[in-house]
């Protein structure tokens, strides 16, 4: 009998294109911008771009977990706001607390809100869209209350380093993003946990039958998303040197967009971390590049919208065939 069918996939240019469609898209965008504005490629601009992107990057990574399970987290923007605000309230230089206390507070707020999301989605069975939409509203309301909608400036030196400082030439937010990426890569691809996340999103019933605690997995991805949003909130607050009640507003859109551009299906079970990286880089490069070229803000809207669609189109056209 014919032994092993479909043995090794041969590398084939068409397949490459379909697998790495958005990556080619990213490269194309970079090339076009560099030609039109050579300074785009200057080291300091690249670092600058990466620093700007790191916040959306963190959110997009958290979103990737959520999306892999077939969920969505609309509350990340508000969690950024809440955790950043509470961190700021603690980081005021008058209190003389070490920087990490504020960071811990920010983390805890993110984790707490994420856990609430997770519990509401997995145990109370509220659809993720509604649960996190509710949380979007609640967390923002709490942030306003905590600050009476006023900025909280005067943060301690140590705390301000997180968003503004560098290690060598590399901005600290970029360092943090890299560390998070490595940990997430391991958890998704080298540890069982990742298998369970994929399995839960792919076929929750089958996962359950295989003995996976599906509810725990679902709950955990919102916790991860919340925690990373907490980190993003801390970085953002440090970067803008004050707690701002409205910060993070609408950040969820870019985070979800990055995950979806990267090829993570909102239906769950299908996705890839490197795709998310490509996704948030496309968004970051677009924002930075169009500003560098001083494109008018109305045209920016049209161009960004078109690029997102086109970048994904290649990918989709091919994928859909299989």
């Amino acid at each position: 009998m014919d032994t092993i069918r479909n043995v090794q996939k041969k590398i084939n240019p068409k397949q490459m294109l379909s697998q790495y469609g958005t990556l080619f898209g990213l490269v194309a965008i970079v090339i076009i911008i560099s030609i039109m504005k050579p300074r785009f490629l200057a080291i300091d601009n690249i670092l600058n771009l990466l620093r700007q992107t790191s916040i959306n990057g963190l959110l997009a990574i958290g979103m990737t977990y959520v999306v892999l399970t077939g969920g969505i987290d609309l509350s990340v923007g508000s969690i950024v706001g809440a955790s950043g605000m509470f961190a700021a309230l603690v980081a005021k230089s008058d209190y003389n607390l070490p920087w990490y206390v504020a960071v811990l507070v920010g983390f805890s707020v993110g984790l707490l809100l994420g856990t609430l999301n997770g519990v509401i989605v997995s145990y109370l069975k509220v659809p993720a869209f509604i649960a996190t939409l509710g949380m979007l509203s609640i967390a923002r309301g709490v942030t306003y209350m905590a600050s009476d909608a006023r900025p909280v400036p005067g943060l301690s030196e140590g705390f301000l380093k997180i968003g503004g400082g560098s290690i060598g030439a590399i901005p600290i937010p970029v360092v943090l993003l890299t560390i998070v990426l490595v940990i997430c890569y391991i958890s998704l691809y080298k540890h069982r946990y990742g298998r369970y996340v994929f399995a839960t999103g792919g076929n929750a019933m089958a996962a359950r039958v295989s003995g996976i605690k599906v509810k725990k997995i679902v709950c955990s991805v919102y916790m991860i998303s919340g925690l990373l949003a907490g980190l993003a909130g801390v970085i953002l607050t440090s970067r803008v040197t004050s707690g701002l009640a409205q910060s993070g507003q609408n950040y969820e859109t870019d985070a979800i967009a990055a995950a979806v551009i990267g090829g993570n299906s909102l239906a769950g079970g299908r996705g890839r971390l490197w795709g998310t990286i490509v996704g948030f880089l496309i968004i970051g490069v677009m924002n930075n590049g169009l500003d560098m070229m001083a494109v008018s803000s109305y045209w920016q809207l049209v161009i960004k919208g078109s690029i997102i669609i086109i970048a994904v189109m290649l990918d989709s056209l091919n994928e859909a065939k299989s």
Partner: protein
Amino acid sequence: SNSGKKEAAESTSASTEESTKAGADKEGDKKIVLGMTLYSLKNEFTVRLANAATAKAEELGVELKIYDGNYDPSTQISQIETMISDGVDGIILNPQDAEALSVGVDKAVAAGIPVVGVNTRVQSDKLTSYVGSQDVYAGELETQFMVDLVGSKFNTVIIEGPLGQSAQIERRQGIQNVIDKNPEIKVLAEKTANWSRSEAMTIMENWLNAFDDIDAVIAENDEMALGAREAIKAKGLDIPVIGVDGITDALNAVESGEMVASIFQDGAGQGSKAVEVLVNAVNGQAVDKEYWIDFEPVTKDNVAEFKLRAQ
């Protein structure tokens, strides 16, 4: 139309003698490049400011790149970073948030780039100059106007800008200052309508159904005042409404008596002055720390003059 901005970005023509003088750098013929970030380019007021700045830049023969901050302070910081790595000669800053953008000023100044603030304050002593007004004053003016109009005892509702934005905080502060002086003013309700006309209209409709005794409506900008005015008109009532900015629709409404007044903010004046001041600073001339182009009340009596200025 918006073509003005585009032209400015690509502007190549050096039109008048004066502009060549001002625009030329001392060492060579390199053109001065300025960057300007506004908290938004999605409302009439800032567009007016940006257009005036563009026109002035053209007149002076300098290049002006305009960035839209999208109501997000961290976007504006990013844009300042982008301008720094792009090597602009000077920056005009119209910040979304007074506290947050101080770090942007620090960065620019550290890179040796002068920054001129315009229209909204920024909490920094490193500004080369500030051209604009104080939002607290606008809040005081409009509330005082109401006191003068209906007396020191009345019930009011307040429609606020996006919570936490500097303009909202300061204008609300100004309103409060006057209320504190007139303890018989009662605030029945207050809510944000996010600078939006339709949101304000909905909120006002709801309040009109909830309260019979609203004597005055104080809105933190004209868009929202106009929305409230629509709701009041639809109910067949006549409650005085006041707003801030002096946008075209509001001036028309003041003229026709639909709004009792608006507090005019000379965006165009601020925009062109800011460019002028910054070009002078880049060219090494001395400039003042502050240029006040402050709020002025517009009433039916003087509206014609403002309509001319708003062109």
